[in-house]
């Protein structure tokens, strides 16, 4: 699943940074007048974003980003972006080295205690000491795990808040271009489904993954008493809900969008015909002028959509990198601990790493679905104009 999501992201970024800029270069850049748009809500949300996002992209201003995209002036270099991303991942892994150190040292102490167990007068003393060390280790690991889950929840929250600010703007542009039916159909459905989606992921899927992780850790506490099946059940439930949500969300958007844009396209076509037919001689000139203005409005809407996608990508990628870095640290700790300690501890750490990769998958899915939502709304406008 993770691989699929990555492939989707790469394709999406490729599309995102190639098509709209070229489109902007072909049209008349002087036609773009963003002052008519009320972007205050979106700008406010972008300004209130995480400090870390602000640090990563210090001059993130939605209006200027949109203007640059519309005029094809956005300068970016794919190698620079990848370098920056790799540097960011590396920094995150470095920041979590302390955690790695603690986990490894505790695991080594536990392994040594296990070997010395026979030296105690009663084996139970050694067992208790081992058990306590193990508890300390899992407390540490679960503590960090909880923090990471919270990063995921915050990311989903930020994305939902941003989408709630961006979509009214996009729908306004869509309706202004003639997509009245589309925007009327979309508004309640898309805003409702985005909010429900965010809430379900945040309050159902992520807690289920957390429960599964905690149970898999508890499973390692006792060799005789296993709860791994219960952990599997929670994990499966979480993944199923995530899959169902994504499918339903995409289905609703696709069906509603096409229905709306076809009806708008017909309405626009009728209007164009009326102008052509009833205004003598120069009717064609009028409909051409309307079409030219519509083209620039379309470009503006696409630029706003692409700027939205850029912000959603930032909101998704930065937390994802953090989650991935911590998951990597857990997996690395598991790999390092395995030769010195017992399999139980290595399994516990690896299991936590795997659960974090599931959190990564859930957050990435939300980002991807929101990306699709923006693309569909933007695409609907294009379809409406195309069908006229």
């Amino acid at each position, binding site marked *: 699943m993770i691989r699929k999501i990555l492939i989707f992201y790469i394709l999406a970024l490729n599309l995102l940074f190639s098509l709209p800029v070229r489109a902007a270069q072909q049209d008349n850049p002087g036609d773009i007048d963003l002052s*008519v*748009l*009320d972007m205050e*809500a979106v700008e406010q949300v972008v300004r209130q974003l995480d400090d870390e996002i602000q640090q990563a992209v210090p001059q993130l201003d939605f209006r200027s980003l949109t203007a640059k995209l519309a005029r094809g002036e956005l300068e970016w270099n794919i190698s620079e972006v990848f370098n920056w991303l790799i540097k960011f991942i590396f920094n995150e892994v470095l920041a979590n080295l302390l955690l790695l150190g603690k986990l490894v040292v505790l695991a080594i102490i536990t392994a040594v205690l296990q070997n010395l167990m026979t030296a105690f007068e009663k084996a*139970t003393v050694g*067992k*208790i000491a081992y*058990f306590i060390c193990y508890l300390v280790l899992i407390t540490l690991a679960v503590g960090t795990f909880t923090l990471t889950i919270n990063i995921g929840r915050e990311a989903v*929250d930020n994305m*939902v*808040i941003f989408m*709630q*600010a961006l979509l*009214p703007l996009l*729908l*306004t*542009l*869509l*309706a*202004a*271009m*003639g997509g*009245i039916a589309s*925007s*009327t159909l979309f*508004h*309640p459905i898309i*805003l409702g489904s985005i*909010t*429900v989606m*965010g*809430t*379900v992921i945040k*309050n*159902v899927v992520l*807690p*289920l993954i957390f*429960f599964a992780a905690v*149970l898999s850790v*508890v499973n390692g*506490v*006792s060799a*005789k*008493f296993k*709860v791994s099946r*219960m952990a599997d059940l929670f994990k499966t439930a979480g993944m199923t809900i995530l899959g169902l949500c994504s499918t339903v969300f995409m289905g609703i958007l696709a069906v509603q969008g096409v229905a709306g844009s076809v009806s708008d396209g017909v309405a626009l076509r009728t209007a164009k015909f*009326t102008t052509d037919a*009833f*205004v*003598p*001689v*120069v009717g064609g*000139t*009028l409909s051409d*002028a*309307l079409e*030219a*203005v*519509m083209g620039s*409005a379309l470009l503006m809407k696409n630029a706003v959509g692409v700027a939205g996608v850029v912000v959603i990508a930032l909101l998704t990628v930065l937390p994802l990198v953090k989650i991935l870095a911590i998951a990597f640290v857990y997996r690395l700790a598991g790999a390092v601990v395995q030769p010195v300690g017992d399999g139980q501890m290595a399994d516990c750490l690896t299991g936590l790493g795997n659960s974090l990769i599931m959190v990564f998958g859930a957050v990435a899915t939300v980002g991807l679905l929101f990306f699709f939502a923006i693309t569909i709304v933007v695409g609907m406008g294009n379809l409406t104009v195309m069908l006229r």
Partner: protein
Amino acid sequence: MEILRQLVQSLIIIVMLAVFLELLLPSGTMQGYVKMVMGLLVVIAVLQVVFDFFHTDFYLHVPKLSSTPSAALEQVQANAKELSEHYQNRALEDYRSGIAKQVLALARLNRELAVLDARVDLNTSRGENFGRLQLIQLTVTDKPQTEQGAGKIKPVEIQVGADGGDSYQQGQVTEEKQQAMDKLAKTVANFYNLPPEQVQVIYTN
């Protein structure tokens, strides 16, 4: 989710208890019994959740949605209407200036008069007549006398207009010029399929 959280909490407590009992109790047959009792506790904990679920009256509360207020549909539609009017006005302005240029180019084909400016009025009210030409106003003057230096004619203002009014200033325009202006107005009116009174020709200095 609260029910599941409680279930997980109970499971953790039961497992921890089982581990402590395992450590505290002497090894032997007792361990097996402890395991079974703890297993039964787990079964009870899980079944309790399942039965609780079946006894729920299924008045399921929708989880609280995100608190950020979003713009209402009415607001979106009002903004869209405003923006749409802005686009339409811009299109009309482009159309008006385009037609004015076209009229100017057409009128300048005339050999007798120099056309200085063309102004176009459109019907901007919504409806069947939206975008129709209402009035074309041409400002004309004499062709510059380059060859024989004939005396300048005094400026004359002529209007062929909606007022029905020939607003020619009689006495200041020669018959010849008046005919030229009439001809010009007629050409433009015919080209745009307009009644002649919707084309005004103003003679200026």
